C-alpha cells in the first residue's frame, strides 16, 4: 500500500481548467452528511460506515483532501486518525485530484500477456496524462496503472471513472472510448 502525503486543498495549486469549485470545498453538504449517517446506520457499528462515507466524500470533493477526511470523521463521530488511516490504506480512495475522465489500465499478468503495457503507453500518448500523476493541464484526463480488474479472459481492459468498464480494448476501441469521453457520453469523475 502506498501512503502519499495528502496536500491541503488550499495549499495545492490548481491547474487551469481544473474543477475549482469541487476541490476547493472544505465542507460536506448537509445532504451528504445525512447520506453518510444513513449509510452508517445500516450496519451494527457506526465505524462500519467509514468506507461508504469516504466514497460519498470522494464524490463530493472529487478526491479525499485532509479537509474531506476531517469532515467524514465529524459526520460519523469517529477519530480523525482512524479515517486518515483507512483513506490512505485503500487505493480506490484518491488522495489527489483526478481529471474529468480518469483512466485505469490493468497491467497485471493476464492483461500484460495481451498487450496491456502497450495500451497504457497508447492511452498516455493519446491523452498526455502521466500514469500515476495528476490531471492534465486542461483537467480532462488522468491515468493510473492498476492491479487486476477481474477481466483476465477479456484482456486487456481499462476502466473509465467508476462506471465504464471496457474489455478487449484495441486501438479502435480506445479511440471510440476517447471520443465518447470528449462527446460527454460518460458521466465525469465524481458525478
Amino acid at each position, binding site marked *: 500500500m502506498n501512503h502519499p502525503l495528502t496536500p491541503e486543498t488550499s495549499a495545492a495549486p490548481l491547474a487551469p481548467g481544473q474543477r475549482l469549485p469541487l476541490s476547493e470545498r472544505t465542507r460536506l453538504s448537509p445532504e451528504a452528511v445525512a447520506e453518510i449517517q444513513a449509510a452508517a446506520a445500516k450496519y451494527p457499528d457506526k*465505524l462500519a460506515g467509514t*468506507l461508504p462515507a469516504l*466514497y460519498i466524500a470522494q464524490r463530493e470533493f472529487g478526491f479525499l483532501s485532509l479537509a474531506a477526511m476531517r469532515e467524514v470523521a465529524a459526520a460519523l463521530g469517529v477519530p480523525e486518525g482512524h479515517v486518515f488511516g483507512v483513506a490512505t490504506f485503500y487505493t480506490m480512495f484518491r488522495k489527489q485530484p483526478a481529471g474529468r475522465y480518469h483512466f485505469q489500465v490493468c497491467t497485471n*499478468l493476464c492483461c500484460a*500477456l495481451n498487450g496491456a503495457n502497450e495500451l497504457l503507453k497508447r492511452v498516455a500518448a493519446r491523452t498526455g496524462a502521466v500514469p500515476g500523476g495528476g490531471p492534465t493541464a486542461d483537467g480532462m484526463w488522468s491515468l493510473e496503472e492498476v492491479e487486476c480488474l477481474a477481466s*483476465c479472459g477479456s484482456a486487456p481492459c481499462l476502466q473509465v471513472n467508476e*462506471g465504464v468498464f471496457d474489455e478487449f480494448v484495441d486501438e479502435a476501441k480506445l479511440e471510440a472510448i476517447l471520443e465518447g469521453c470528449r462527446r460527454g457520453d460518460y458521466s465525469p469523475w465524481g458525478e
Partner: protein
Amino acid sequence: MAAIRTKPDPQRYSFDGLGSAPYPNLMLLGAGDLDNWTLDRYRDRWEGYRALAMALKMEPAAVTAEVKLSDLRGRGGAGFRTGMKWGFMPKDTPERKLTRYLVCNGDEGEPGTFKDRAILEYNPHQLIEGMIIAGWAMQCKAAFIYVRGEFGWLVRKLEAALQQARDAGYLGRNILGSGWDFDILTYRGAGAYICGEETALLNSLEGRRGEPRVKPPFPAQAGAFGQPTTVNNVETLAAVPPILRMGGAQYAKLGTPGNTGTRIFSVSGHVKRPGLYELPLGLPLDFIVNDLAGGSSTGRKLKAIIPGGSSAPMFDAKDFDCPMDFDSVKARGSMAGSGGIIVMDESTCMVQVILRLTRFYAHESCGQCTPCREGCNWMEMILDRIEHGQGRPDDLALLASLPPRINMRTLCPLGDAACGPVESALQKFRGEFDHHIEHKACLCG
C-alpha cells in the same frame, strides 16, 4: 457492458475419458445473457427459490448435513469443506442467544480469476438464495456481501436484486412463513487485494484498514463485529441451491470422490478461447486448455501454466495431464486455488512474468508482518535489476534465499502466495534467469 465469454454450449462437450455425461452448468445458469439477472427469470427458468422453500421446511441441522453429504469444498482458494465450516458455528444455549453473521466474500482480486464477477453479473439471485439457505442452516441474524470496490456497478445490480427478493418475501421478516427473520446487506470494498483474506475482509467490513487478524480467535468464535461469523466465497454459496435441489448425494457424484461438484475455471492468457468454463472437478488440464480453450492463440508452443490463480506455483508443459482437482494439483506441488488458469506461450519471458507478479504482491502487502512487507519488496528489487540487465552473479542465490524466510512466517497467506511463483519459476525456468544475468538480455527475444 461486460463481455465475459462463457462455455459456448455446455452440452456440446463431453469427455469420454472420465465416462461423464455432458457437463451441466449449475452456477453459470444463463451466463452471457444480461437480462438473466431478474427474479422473474431466475424463478421461471431456473427453478429459482425452490431450494429455499425446501430448506425452510427442513431442520437447520439437516440442511448442514445435506451440504456435508455433498462434500462441497470452498471455492475461494483453500478448498476447506463447507459443511464442516458451517458446523463450527456455535449454537444457542438456554442461557445465551447468540447473534451470528454470514459473510459472502466477493472481493475477487486474484489475478487470473473472474468467476465471481460472472455470478454477480448474470445470476445474483442464485447467490442470494444460497446465502439465505446458509443463513437458515446456521440460524444467522443477517448476512453481508463484501464486493470489491471496482465492481461498483455490480453492487448497484446486487442492491436491485436484493430489493426484488425483499419484495417477494424471500428476505425480511418471517421468510415464507417460517417465523425466521433475515436480511442481506452489501458492502463495497475500496481496492485492496488483501481483503480477500477472511479476517482482513472482516476488518474492512467493520470500516477499518484491511489488515488480517491474529488467529485464534477464528471467525466462528469472534468474526464480524465480534460475533460468530462464517465467511464463504461467492461460488461456494452459489453452489448451495443446486445441492439442495438435486440432493447432496447426487451432487457428490459429480467430480471425483473427495473433490466433488463443479467449479468455474477462468482461463486466460495465450489461448484461443479464454473465458469461464464450469466443469466437474478432476478433468485433465490438457482438456481444459487445449480442447475447451482451443490451445495456443499465438501458434507457438505453450510453456508455462499457472493452475489456480497467480498465487499458485507454476506448471510447465510436463504437467498437462494433471487432473484439475484440489488434491491432485496439490500433489504436483501447486494449488487449485481460485481456479484461475493462466496460460503462457514460449515467447513469454519468465523473468518479466515473475517480476510483474512480485510487484503485485509487494504493492498489495498490507505491511503488518515484516517478512512479507520487506521480503516482497526485496524480491521485486532483485528481479527488477535482473530484468533490466543489472543482475549480479549471486543474485539468484540471494533471491532463492528469500522465500523460505517469508513462507509460513506471516499472519496470512499473502506472503506464501508471493513465494509460490518465485520458487517454482526458479526451479523450472532457471536457465532464463541465468541468461538474463550472464548476457544482460532476454532468452525469449
